[in-house]
């Protein structure tokens, strides 16, 4: 009953204050408008003409052709006779990609594989690669695709996108959490209103949960707004087909959702811990900036390091970022994702316990 009253109070304050609602929703809208505008400036809407060497046959080819036609683009299929020559053509820009299917590909049999060779530095090549992978995921391909690029430079397309998205998610989640948590925890402590609640018979653990639960929900709305802003506008910015985001399975989206859902309360708890320790919003902001840098470093590490061992699931933040990266690459790291969710929730519970302890500490609460 007391916990419910505490939770309702936070929601009441948020949903009755237009400024807070704008603070949470505005970043997503601004990101969408800004990225879309930039995308329109950078990428022209000229139709693409692609030449693709094809080896083996699959129903996937028909789906690809249909999607390309619907986009107003053209594709010419060439039989793959000499791979060396075809590779040279891709490298020279005379062809877009080489696409290969094993004989039993459509039967999902043992050893069924697909392969693509493309120029990751070419806009057409990256577009075609994104299209192929999204179609393969949409038809339920559960085995890896052999990907080779003829360009040593970094892929400007999907690879950047899939590795960058988890980092962006972390950034937006952190920003959303920061904007509501600092004010609610450090602000209340600074204004002395938290002491008023401490003078009642409510349990300290309920006060901590009464902050973390609603702030996590509110932050999740903010993070979702920013995330949607990115997802809807980034393909435009990167010159990719937005269809690549619709190609993921329900399980992939569910895992992504669970990872973000476990990540939000973790970040809220971490910021709330720092805010409870601080004497003012200003002090809490300074400490939270350090926390943000740490989280950013961990996220960046996941961009740089190609693969981690299984131990990564035990490291909060890094576990979620790594799992999200794998999901966006077309993999389905089910157990890693679920363990990561569990680990994040355990760390959240630990932080809630710590906050409850700090609320009982007069040194922390009254600076004595």
């Amino acid at each position: 009953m007391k916990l419910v009253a505490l939770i309702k109070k936070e929601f009441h304050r948020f949903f009755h204050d237009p400024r807070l609602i704008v603070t949470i929703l505005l970043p997503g809208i601004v990101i969408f408008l800004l990225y879309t505008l930039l995308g329109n400036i950078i990428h022209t809407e000229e139709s693409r003409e692609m030449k693709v060497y094809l080896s083996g046959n699959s129903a996937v080819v028909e789906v690809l052709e249909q999607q390309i036609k619907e986009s107003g683009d053209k594709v010419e299929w060439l039989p793959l006779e000499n791979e060396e020559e075809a590779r040279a053509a891709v490298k020279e820009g005379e062809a877009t990609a080489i696409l290969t299917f094993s004989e039993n590909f459509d039967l999902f049999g043992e050893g069924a594989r697909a392969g693509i060779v493309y120029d990751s530095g070419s806009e057409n090549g990256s577009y075609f690669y994104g299209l192929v992978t999204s179609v393969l995921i949409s038809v339920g391909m559960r085995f890896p695709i052999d990907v080779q690029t003829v360009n040593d430079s970094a892929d400007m397309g999907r690879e950047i996108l899939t590795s960058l998205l988890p980092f962006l998610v972390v950034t937006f989640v952190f920003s959303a959490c920061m904007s509501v948590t600092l004010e609610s925890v450090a602000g209340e402590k600074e204004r002395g209103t938290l002491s008023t609640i401490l003078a009642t018979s409510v349990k300290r653990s309920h006060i901590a949960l009464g902050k973390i639960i609603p702030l996590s929900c509110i932050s999740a709305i903010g993070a979702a707004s920013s995330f949607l802003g990115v997802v809807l506008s980034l393909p435009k910015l990167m010159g990719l087909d937005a269809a690549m985001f619709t190609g993921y399975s329900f399980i992939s989206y569910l895992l992504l959702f669970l990872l973000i859902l476990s990540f939000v309360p973790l970040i809220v708890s971490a910021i709330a811990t720092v805010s409870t320790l601080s004497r003012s919003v200003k002090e809490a902001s300074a400490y939270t900036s350090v926390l943000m840098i740490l989280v950013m470093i961990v996220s960046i590490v996941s961009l740089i390091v190609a693969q981690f061992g299984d131990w990564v699931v035990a490291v909060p933040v890094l576990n979620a970022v790594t799992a999200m990266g794998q999901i966006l690459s077309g993999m389905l790291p089910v157990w890693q994702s679920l363990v990561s969710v569990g680990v994040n929730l355990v760390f959240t519970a630990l932080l809630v316990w710590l906050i409850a302890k700090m609320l009982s500490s007069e040194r922390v609460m009254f600076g004595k």
Partner: protein
Amino acid sequence: MEDLFTSEIVRAENLKKTFTLSRKQQRLEKTSLTRKVAVNGLSFSANRGEIYGLLGPNGAGKTTTLRMLSTLIKPDEGDAYIMGHSVRKEPQKVRDCVGFLTGELKLETFFTPDYLFDFFGAMHGVEKETLVKRKRELFARFGIDAFSQVKVGDLSTGMKQKVSLVISIVHDPDVVIFDEPTNGLDVLTAKVVTDFLAELKRMGKSVLLSTHIFSLVEKLCDRVGIIIDGKMVEEGPLEGVCGERSLEEKFFELYHGLKGEIV
């Protein structure tokens, strides 16, 4: 003997509290000491239906004492019992039977008095029907009905104090602790507060208040404790403490005896 014991609602035994001084505080207090004894061996008791006044200058330890009694901070030594519950060992039970109001405890400016009354009622576990009845009574008595739907941030100091007052007694506590209850109030609001304190006494509640206003103690209190530098220098029934003199004369006699003449 039993009657005497059960009528003792508040009992403080040898309370001691020491604070660590920050460098800024050391500079302000012009001392090189890193610790300050705020309350030093304080003992007193208050009975049911009594108003007990803690009188002393700023920094004497009045607020620290009241905060220990309301379980916001823990005594370093000694203990206090409210309705028989130890503030050290049973803080949760103490909070259930204490209403605490201090100038340092603030209300969130975003909410209305109506919302905050319901919220703090829920915090104290007051049942909904009781809460509605109590809100009607208290809001009418303090004239809060007129601004019950106005955000606290838009209220005057007097209005805020009225709201704080009713919220501190939302759960109908047996012991009410008020730290400087009339500070910063206009004469009309101060009168409402002092009248209410007298009514709490008539209702059989125990009231502990800290103040530096002699007239308030003389008008309301049955017992008085004079605190100087964290020590109880005189304590007892008002008549016994003052004798033939006024409270003000008695206070300065004690003060000068300890600290010397004020220049």
